[in-house]
């Protein structure tokens, strides 16, 4: 091995990396929250009885799921100024990731809703409750619980994929790391550090998500 590792320039840049970590966390957590919300709306459209709504939702979901997030972020960032909407790199990244996350979340949550036994909905109806209330108070919690692991891994994937948004100058971890790379050429050290940080971030994220899950879904099941 004729390469000598030198982590000094990487560690010297820790404030930048920290800023990158914050950027990654900020952008991915906002997109998760908005994406889940929007995803639930698309899921309801997809499952609704109205063919029009259903077609729109299916079209949206398939369009987003089958094209790369990189392209999506490009269109938001470079394309939307043409119609007069100019978003900063970070705003564009959050919007694109939200749109992306929504499509996946819609499908995952739909799986959860379909796993709810019809008896649950019937019980709500037999008690005279309205459809909206039935979804809100009876269906959602068990449905999301049923698919929570899938949802969490989608979130983690989203966090990892957020590295792609650096291409529109959204300032997240990979962005700073690559900038650092172009200044120090310590590629191995930088990528190694980056790998460790992402691994740590995904562990922390999955711990936080499972904690949230444990609190929110604390009711026992058989």
């Amino acid at each position, binding site marked *: 091995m004729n390469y000598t590792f030198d982590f000094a320039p990487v560690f010297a840049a820790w404030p930048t990396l920290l800023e990158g970590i914050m950027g990654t966390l900020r952008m991915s957590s906002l997109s998760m929250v908005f994406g889940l919300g929007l995803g639930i709306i698309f899921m309801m459209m997809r499952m609704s009885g109205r063919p029009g709504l259903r077609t729109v939702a299916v079209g949206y979901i398939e*369009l987003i799921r*089958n*094209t790369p997030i990189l392209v999506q972020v490009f269109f938001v960032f470079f394309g939307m100024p043409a119609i007069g909407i100019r978003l900063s790199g970070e705003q564009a990244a959050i919007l694109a990731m939200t749109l992306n996350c929504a499509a996946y979340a819609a499908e995952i949550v739909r799986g959860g809703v379909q796993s709810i036994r019809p008896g649950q909905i019937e019980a709500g109806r037999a008690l005279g409750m309205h459809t909206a209330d039935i979804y809100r108070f009876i269906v959602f919690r068990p449905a999301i619980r049923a698919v929570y692991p899938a949802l969490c*891994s989608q979130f983690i*994937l989203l966090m*990892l994929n957020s590295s792609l948004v650096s291409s529109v100058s959204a300032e997240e971890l990979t962005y700073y790391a690559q900038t650092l790379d172009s200044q120090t050429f310590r590629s*191995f050290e930088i990528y190694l550090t980056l790998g460790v940080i*992402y691994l740590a971030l995904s562990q922390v994220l999955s711990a936080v998500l499972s904690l949230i899950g444990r609190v929110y879904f604390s009711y026992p099941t058989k």
Partner: protein
Amino acid sequence: MIRQFGWGEFLFLLEGARWTVVLSLLAFTVGGALGLAVALGRTSKWKLLRMVTAAYIQVFQGTPLLIQLFFVYFGLPLLGLKVDVWVALTIGLSLHTSAFLGEIWRGSIQAVPDGQSEAARALGIGYVHRMVDVVLPQAFRIGLPATISFLVNLIKGTALAALLGLTELTRSGQLMANITFQPLQVYGAVALIYFCICVPLTYCSARIERRLNAAR
């Protein structure tokens, strides 16, 4: 003279798309086989095997594919192991794929009711046939949607092979964008091609899903 984005440029993208397809097939076959092993390890009765595969999944699910590829291709030579691009891609993509599929399939295997494998055990059927004949066919059905949606992600994820110098679809798009300076048109076309590669998959999966559900 810079070029306009036209038919010839589109063909160039298609050429790149060929690699995308090859890479996806490669990742899915090798990674799929490895993923099955990981899933079986995760559901094994030996605690040690369960722990090892759990750690494997944690590590390879928890780090971006970009970084895995970087290390296989640029890192291993530092240890004196010079690897060919295709070897590196196979290793990198398979590690990534197997971790995700392993986890998805573990879930599906565990979702097959215990009664099924108990009934097989009660009939004296050994592990291999119990899995092949009884559990896996049922797990397949359960895991199909998640598998397809991962596969669709994987197809787009192979774009990272560009780091290793392979001009696949996304990289072709970047090259074209830098020649024509019309990124929106180029990336629009790139998205379209990805869409055409992925849609048959999601479509098939929806159909198989519907058929399996009807048969239930």
